[in-house]
């Protein structure tokens, strides 16, 4: 990593030239001036530290943190000047904080090391000195010949030398690199492809020259020079010759390749991006608060210094006879004195900046994030995947989401295409048990083992099974050893074949025809073979008219077994129908629209017969276009347009991309939580809208606005204005907006504001035909809009990565399209529906926990240090500490640290079931509300108030310094300080106890344990003359304090005085203006479950179980009614209040049904 960075920054240029010369198998020329180039080894390093640099590097990184640096400065100041507290008081907590962080980071790095070692230590086979040697991946050097077997990943970037196939090709998938799951064919140079054995390779003399490593996956320029019989043959190399590290070999038994880019120079490693540090909103406000506290600290120190000099201006206070200065002090310069006094005050008050805040926050996030992975509700049984946390820094951000950007395919849908229906010759069919059944017929005829298909149907099926670019992978590799694939076709069943296709639709279609009886069984050279109900037919593939996004169709030209020439075309309805001349065009069009409405993805299939004469013409056109040297593209388009004409319509297909489980419910719930949902998809407009409708993103009642196919700026602006007007006129109903990629880029270029205006007023936005970067752009647009909303992006594919990285929180769905999205995400879940719990429950919890944690930390440190400040007014601003050094040191790391940590791990303000049942609770914490300036002010003022009560309570207790002990003896200053400290520890701990809503045994343990620990520790600390301590000021002070009855009474009264207004405030707020969170606290868990039941029942007709549970609930309630009026009262109250808040947001029927029933029963 470091090396990579240095290279990127240009520090150590590893390459002298623009190209690298790789001698295959490292056989360097024996003569000639050869300067060996140095290449990186094949080690992948994702770890940050090594054993040796861990300490210095980690320390350096930690002290780059502003808070740590601040404490380091304080520590150094303490070492330099004559300070009121010993350097240990800030040194020890700093050491503690640094150590804990270092341990955590060390552990994480150790995990990375382990992963690296696993990768670097993976066994690979390398050709060395004439034989195949097994070695570790990290030992591969540039120039080594590597053997890779089927289904293995490539350990480095290799130039393909040979495969076990005669033509030297191989198939790979690059799913883990770019998310494309189709098979790609890579080629080797003919001169090397003959070297299929180790001995042949040994004899090979070749040199590869290629460019220096670069990150672009699709660019590779080089050449290979093969020396054969003293003759040098030069061949160009391109990306199709390069096998990328991380890609997987498919369908090929083994290959040999020469390593050209290794380790951190491989294209995969160069594409590995350092994850940008995302910072949560909480952390940002935390930093703001820190700055405010820094200002408070500085002003307190300045004030104290000024007052000190004001006092000292009077002679009798400057140097009373009993406390004279040393000569040195008298003679030192006043400015130096002033500065040193200021620094001393700074040191005295420095604890107001909570040193352990960062480390506690970090620990809380690290430990707390385990709960996400542990959650059974986020575990997906079928795929055996649990939720995965990649960044624990953003836990609380999950509770703050305002905009949700979701990909469609694979995120909302399963990305599992299923052939559903088709229309052949104007008749609709659906697939049932592997048979095509015309519409209207029910089920299949029981007897018919080989159904009679009409010729149109057969032609249609053949067309579908021939017109594609699907590849086949055979699972039984040993049964197919290259050569002629067809010889074995009949000997094994089709189930061993696996289709790979660039488009999942094609795959679904070919699979469907196989089920029905027309199976595509292979393709070799220019022959395609299909198996029609047991009969094998061979078609000669003459031309492929490739798919391109402008034409939106593809065609093949085949020679049928009977010798005729035929064209099959398949494409989008709008791209094919206009060119059809015969067939049931109108009926088919109707059917296609019907399919689209059902949310099916549609394709239209057509064919054309060529007469021999026509074909010659076609062939000529194509050849000339393909070989044209100028304007080849254009000519090809013309040729295609000419050929794909006069088509005979065969029919249309409807493929369903199944919605994931519970997607509509999840979207509904998230919407009621106040989250605006945008669907960003690469799909076409019609499909996107229909999926959007079926997943509940768009409602049927919504007024759908369109911003589509805008060509010019003005047109776009005009349309936007029109839409804005429509929204204004019609503000009663909800609006949904559909935008396509092209119009979006127009809208974003000039009319961002107008566009935002429209978007904000729409309750649902759908962007279709989006390029990956456009997705990120949309996210950034909202992110940077004036309200700065928190955005979340969900996606599953490589095309979502940019969006995931751009959003505040990126969530990867562990789908079928590789793990690229998962790897780049902050959190990864198996299914879209888990989002509801992740946001509503986990997000809510984490946010409340961390918000309270932060506020409480500031509060407790204000409480801690303000009495010390106040004490200066009574000791001539002489920087006398109120508390002993040990107490100053341990307050934050021992006495008050654990309760808040445990609180921040386990607190549950509301039962998780209620949180899920009442999504509107999510709104209570939106906009960082618990860390608003008002709450911050409340906690700070509270801290100051409590500090005043502690100090002046104790001060008044001392009165005119009357004895407080029954033996008439007197307290000293340390007893006074210890009294204040004791009161403080108890109050601060109990204040947290008041905040705690969820008392597990651990909360009890740490809360009471902390107080007990304080007492036990103090008794111990004060009970011994500590030989290594400089002074014995605290000796027996604590025992003396506790032996005094008045002190006990004082402790009780001061603690109660501090806390009882708190209790008052809580109760009054709860009863006078309860938040909906508070209201729902009074619901019990079973009630909550019932609530969610009622909801699902009413909204989604989810069957029986909900009904019975509802019935039980009602029974319960009526039972309660009879048993006690009061009881019923509360339950009805809670339910009614719930409905009050709720029907605001949801236009559904839930409340309407619940309330009347209840009213009638109670």
């Amino acid at each position: 990593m470091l090396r990579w960075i240095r290279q990127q920054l240009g520090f150590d240029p590893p390459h002298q030239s623009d190209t690298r010369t790789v001698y295959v198998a490292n056989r360097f020329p024996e003569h000639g001036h050869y300067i060996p180039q140095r290449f990186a080894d094949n080690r992948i390093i994702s770890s940050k530290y090594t054993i040796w640099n861990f300490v210095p590097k980690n320390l350096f990184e930690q002290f780059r943190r502003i808070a740590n640096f601040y404490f380091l400065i304080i520590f150094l100041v303490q070492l330099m000047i004559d300070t009121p507290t010993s350097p240990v008081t800030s040194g020890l907590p700093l050491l503690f904080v640094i150590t804990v962080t270092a341990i955590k980071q060390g552990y994480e790095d150790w995990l990375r090391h382990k992963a690296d070692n696993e990768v670097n230590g993976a066994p690979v086979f390398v050709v060395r000195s004439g034989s195949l040697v097994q070695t570790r991946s990290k030992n591969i050097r540039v120039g080594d010949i590597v053997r890779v077997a089927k289904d293995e990943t490539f350990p480095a970037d290799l130039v393909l030398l040979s495969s076990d196939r005669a033509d030297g090709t191989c198939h790979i998938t690059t799913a883990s690199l770019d998310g494309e799951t189709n098979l790609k064919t890579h080629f080797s140079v003919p001169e090397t492809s003959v070297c299929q054995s180790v001995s042949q390779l040994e004899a090979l003399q070749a040199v590869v020259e290629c460019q220096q490593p670069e990150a672009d996956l699709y660019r590779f320029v080089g050449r290979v020079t093969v020396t054969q019989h003293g003759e040098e043959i030069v061949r160009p190399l391109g990306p199709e010759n390069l096998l990328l590290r991380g890609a997987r070999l498919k369908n090929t038994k083994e290959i040999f390749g020469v390593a050209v880019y290794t380790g951190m120079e491989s294209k995969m490693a160069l594409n590995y991006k350092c994850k940008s540090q995302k910072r949560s909103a909480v952390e940002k406000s935390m930093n703001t608060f820190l700055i405010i506290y820094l200002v408070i600290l500085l002003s307190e120190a300045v004030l104290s210094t000024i007052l000190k000099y004001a006092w000292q201006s009077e002679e009798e206070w400057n140097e009373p006879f009993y406390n004279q200065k040393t000569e040195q002090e008298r003679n030192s310069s006043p400015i130096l004195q002033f500065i040193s006094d200021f620094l001393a005050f700074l040191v005295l008050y420095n604890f107001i900046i909570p040193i352990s805040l960062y480390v506690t926050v970090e620990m809380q996030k690290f430990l707390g994030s385990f709960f996400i992975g542990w959650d059974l509700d986020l575990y997906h049984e079928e795929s055996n995947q649990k939720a995965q946390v990649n960044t624990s820094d953003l836990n609380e951000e999950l509770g703050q989401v305002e905009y949700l950007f979701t990909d469609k395919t694979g995120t909302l849908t399963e990305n599992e295409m299923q052939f559903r229906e088709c229309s052949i010759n104007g008749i609709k069919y659906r697939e049932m048990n592997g048979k095509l059944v015309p519409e209207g017929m029910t089920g299949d005829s029981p007897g018919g083992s080989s159904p009679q298909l009409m010729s149109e149907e057969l032609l249609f099926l053949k067309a579908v099974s021939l017109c594609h670019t699907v590849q086949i992978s055979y699972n039984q590799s040993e049964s197919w050893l290259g050569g002629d694939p067809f010889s074995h076709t009949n000997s094994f069943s089709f189930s061993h074949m696996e289709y790979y296709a660039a488009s999942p639709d094609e795959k679904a279609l070919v699979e469907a025809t196989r089920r029905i009886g027309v199976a595509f069984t292979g393709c070799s050279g220019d022959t395609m073979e299909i198996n029609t109900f047991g009969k094998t037919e061979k078609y000669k593939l003459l031309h492929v008219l490739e798919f391109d996004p402008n034409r939106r169709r593809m065609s093949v030209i085949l020679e049928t077994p009977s010798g005729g020439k035929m064209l099959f075309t398949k494409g989008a309805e709008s791209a094919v129908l206009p060119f059809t001349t015969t067939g049931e065009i109108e009926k088919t069009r109707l059917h296609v629209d019907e399919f689209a409405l059902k949310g099916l993805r549609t394709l239209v299939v057509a064919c054309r017969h060529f007469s021999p004469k026509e074909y010659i013409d076609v062939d000529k056109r194509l050849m000339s276009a393909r070989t044209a040297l100028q304007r080849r593209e254009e000519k090809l388009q013309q040729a295609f347009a000419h050929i794909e004409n006069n088509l005979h319509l065969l029919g249309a297909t409807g493929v369903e991309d199944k919605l994931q489980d519970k997607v509509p419910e999840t979207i509904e719930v998230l919407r009621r939580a106040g989250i605006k949902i945008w669907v960003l998809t690469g799909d076409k407009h019609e499909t996107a809208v229909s999926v959007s409708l079926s997943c509940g993103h768009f409602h049927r009642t919504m007024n759908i606005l369109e911003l589509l196919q805008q060509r010019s700026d003005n047109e776009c602006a005009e349309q936007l204005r029109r839409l804005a007007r429509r929204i204004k006129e019609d503000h009663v109903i909800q609006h949904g907006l559909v935008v396509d990629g092209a119009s979006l880029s127009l809208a974003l270029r000039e009319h961002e504001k107008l566009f935002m205006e429209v978007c904000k007023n729409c309750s649902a936005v759908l962007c279709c035909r989006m390029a990956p970067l456009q997705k990120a752009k949309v996210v950034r647009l909202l992110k940077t809009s004036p309200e700065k909303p928190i955005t979340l992006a969900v996606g599953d594919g490589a095309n979502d990565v940019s969006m995931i990285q751009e959003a505040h929180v990126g969530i990867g769905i562990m789908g079928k399209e590789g793990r690229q999205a998962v790897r780049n995400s902050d959190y990864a879940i198996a299914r879209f529906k888990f989002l509801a719990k992740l946001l509503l429950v986990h997000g809510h919890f984490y946010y409340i926990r961390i918000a309270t944690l932060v506020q409480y930390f500031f509060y407790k440190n204000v409480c801690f240090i303000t009495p010390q400040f106040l004490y200066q007014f009574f000791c001539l601003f002489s920087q006398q500490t109120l508390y002993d050094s040990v107490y100053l040191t341990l307050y934050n790391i021992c006495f008050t640290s654990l309760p808040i940590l445990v609180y921040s791990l386990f607190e549950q303000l509301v039962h998780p079931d209620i949180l899920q049942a009442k999504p509107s609770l999510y709104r209570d914490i939106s906009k960082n509300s618990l860390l608003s300036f008002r709450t911050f002010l409340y906690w700070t003022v509270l801290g100051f108030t409590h500090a005043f009560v502690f100090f002046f309570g104790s001060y008044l207790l001392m009165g005119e310094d009357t004895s407080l002990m029954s033996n008439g003896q007197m307290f000293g200053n340390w007893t006074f300080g210890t009294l204040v400290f004791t009161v403080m520890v108890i109050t601060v701990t109990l204040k947290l106890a008041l905040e705690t809503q969820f008392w597990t045994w651990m909360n009890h343990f740490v809360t009471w344990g902390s107080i007990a620990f304080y007492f036990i520790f103090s008794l111990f600390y004060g009970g011994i003359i500590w030989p290594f301590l400089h002074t014995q000021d605290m000796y027996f002070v604590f025992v003396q304090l506790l032996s005094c009855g008045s002190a006990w009474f004082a402790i009780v009264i001061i603690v109660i005085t501090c806390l009882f207004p708190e209790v008052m405030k809580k109760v009054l707020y709860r009863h006078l203006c309860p938040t909906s969170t508070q209201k729902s606290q009074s619901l019990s868990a079973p009630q909550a479950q019932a609530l969610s039941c009622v909801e699902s029942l009413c909204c989604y007709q989810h069957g029986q179980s909900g009904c019975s549970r509802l019935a039980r609930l009602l029974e319960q309630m009526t039972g309660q009614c009879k048993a006690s009026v009061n009881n019923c009262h509360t339950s009805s109250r809670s339910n009614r209040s719930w409905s009050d808040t709720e029907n605001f947001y949801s236009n559904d029927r839930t409340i309407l049904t619940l309330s009347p029933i209840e009213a009638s029963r109670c």
Partner: protein
Amino acid sequence: MVKEEQEESSNRPDNTAFTQQRLPAWQPILSASIVIPMFLLIGAAFIGVGVALFITSRDIQLQELDYTGDDSEHPCFKCRTNTEKCTCSMTFSIPTLFKGPVFFYYGLTNYFQNQRKYGASKDDNQLYGDLDYFTNPSTDCDPYTRDSKNMPIVPCGALANSMFNDSFSLSHTVNGVQKIVPLDGKGIAWWTDYNIKYRNPTLNSVFFSGTKKPTNWPKPIYELDTTDVYNNGFINQDFLVWMRRAALPDFRKLYRRITHDDYADGLPAGNYTLTIAYNYPVHSFNGKKKVVLSNVSWMGGKNDFLGIAYIVVGSMCVVMSVVMLIVYARFKFAEDV
């Protein structure tokens, strides 16, 4: 952080109360129905305790005598600026029996014993009787570490150097005859200070040879109380009392207890004369000196604060609970409608 692809089948999270965040928990809700009775109870209890504390405090007797002598009428006025030894006496009368045991305090005001440098200016090792520190006291004591001839001072430091050196005697006028009230100098310092924290080397001037007395002191440390070897040197109780710094600038320190003879049960009503050997200068910083006679209860000296605080907080609790009750009632009715 989390490993990507673990072995199949082992990915299922454990279904335990802990991992599922379903630990059994007590979930208290602070609602009015709990808080109102609680407040009432606390309020009542506090008022009760407060009244008891107040009565206890009221029963404590206190006699305060300012002897600074700022006023020219005052008998000690003459001593105020006098640098020589000076004695003055004040008379006062006690109307009713001053119940014993009576504690005799001296008090200083405007005196900042709690200054940082002043408080740190001592050597605990020296005071623990460690002879190494006799010859080489800690520099914390500066500028009271060594005298002008560079001889080490024992006990060093500003705190010891400024020890209070007024002394008092009290006499009771019985039938026109002055009867000395015996003052007990034992038990005025903390037991642990006297027995553990401060130690003497074997009290012999030999150990102190090569050291000097503090500059302000009339006599060296080993001559503080020559009559009682257990009250001499570092464990002289007057010294110990002084060395325990006061928290605030107006403070009192215990001087003597009156526990002997006829006065064990207290000071009978009558006229008393307080004779003061006036040495300690306070006028430079506008300080005041006073003598306080007080008896104590189990809760110490006269202290109205606790009683008042308990009564105030208690009544506030009660008042607040009434307020809450009203709110609660109104809220309840509103709910019922």
